[in-house]
């Protein structure tokens, strides 16, 4: 496939059937359940975030909000910052990221590589704290442009316009879509598109569940729900802990040869859960799940080569992995 510039090479990612994992779904002897992986690591900077980052930038340019020489500010745990930094570099914007300090060194190195400035937010509170710090910075610097992925409709809009149509074109028989719940952009955008086109389609969220170190002493009244989130789009929502996420990430590598980031394991775990339910009910299911990024940025954690899941989980303690 041919493109006229690197930025135009976003999207159109492969959708691949996973024959071994599908066959291993309990109760799937009849082969009614098939798992399909949407390989978003094949985007220019290696993650699904290239889609919303580019779309948010282009929409802000079209609206006159973003003009040459502008500073772009964004709270991110990594991938959105990396995508925005790449686009900012090519388009001539200054990029400032607010990122929790407990994220992998690879993410920092990639951001620096694209010329982004990094402001670290405290580990306690994870992404919630990064969002708060970014909002404070935005108030202090009214000339900076915060695209704000958690509340920008163009985040979900990118997936409504591209990810959703790609899935339906490749697999008109899709019955389930499973993705990670962060900004909620992927689930809201793809979810709305598929619900309009595929009667009865199930939209399933896999929410990362970290250890106590990450949640810290957050007050229950100070929680955070992204402005984009609309529970009506989802049919179910699962919380997936580090152990299941790491185990499934390793299983995907061992059985299908797909080298994915840790959040993929959480999404796969939820996908296998809905697959097991469908098989038990004797229902046909074509389950599409998202592989948000490859494993490259998580190599330093050691989870891929750890002797067993326990050792891998220990290696990940205290880290934001999604």
């Amino acid at each position, binding site marked *: 496939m041919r493109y006229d510039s690197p930025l135009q090479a976003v999207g159109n990612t492969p959708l691949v059937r996973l024959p071994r994992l599908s066959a291993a779904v309990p109760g799937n002897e009849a082969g009614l359940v098939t798992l399909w992986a949407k390989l978003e690591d094949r985007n220019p900077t290696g993650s699904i975030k290239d889609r919303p980052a580019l779309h948010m930038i282009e929409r802000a340019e079209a609206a006159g909000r973003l003009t040459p020489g502008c500073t772009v500010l964004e709270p991110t745990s990594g991938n959105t910052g990396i995508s925005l930094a790449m686009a900012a570099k090519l388009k001539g914007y200054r990029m400032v990221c607010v990122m929790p300090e407990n994220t992998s060194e690879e993410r920092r190195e990639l951001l620096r590589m694209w010329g982004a400035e990094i402001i670290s937010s405290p580990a306690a509170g994870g992404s919630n704290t990064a969002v708060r710090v970014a909002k404070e910075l935005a108030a202090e610097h009214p000339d900076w442009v915060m695209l704000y992925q958690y509340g920008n409709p163009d985040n979900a809009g990118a997936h409504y316009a591209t990810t959703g149509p790609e899935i339906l074109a490749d697999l008109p028989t899709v019955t389930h879509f499973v993705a*990670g719940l*962060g900004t909620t952009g992927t689930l809201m955008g793809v979810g709305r598109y598929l619900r309009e086109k595929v009667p009865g389609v199930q939209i399933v969220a896999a929410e990362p*569940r970290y250890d106590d170190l990450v949640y810290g002493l*957050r007050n*229950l*009244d100070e929680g955070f729900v992204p402005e984009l989130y609309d529970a009506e789009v989802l049919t*179910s*929502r699962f919380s997936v802990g580090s152990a299941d996420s790491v185990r499934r990430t390793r299983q995907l590598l061992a059985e299908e040869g797909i080298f994915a980031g840790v959040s993929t394991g959480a999404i796969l775990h939820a996908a296998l859960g809905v697959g097991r339910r469908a098989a038990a009910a004797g229902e046909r299911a074509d389950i599409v799940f998202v592989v948000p990024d490859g494993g490259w940025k998580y190599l330093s954690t050691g989870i891929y080569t750890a002797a067993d899941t326990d050792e891998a989980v220990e290696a990940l303690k205290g880290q934001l992995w999604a």
Partner: protein
Amino acid sequence: MAIEVRIPTILRTYTGGAKAVDGTGSSLGELIADLDVRHPGIADRLLDNGELRRFVNVYLNDEDVRFLQGIGTELTDGDSITILPAVAGGAK
């Protein structure tokens, strides 16, 4: 009927520091009422006018009860309940 309830750090002042406690009830509402008997005040932190507070997430065997029957979600012996504060997920 024993159901394991995992308690977030912020609510462990009500459970004497325990990370997990046992409770009973045939629904989530009954379970929370039961917890409040032994850990007075905890129900008020979880509920507002009988519904889950906005920033409180409760999971039955890892599934968000808001997509089941909410506070009326039926429980059975051996189930596991996890209470967590709402967070912005990762920025994937």
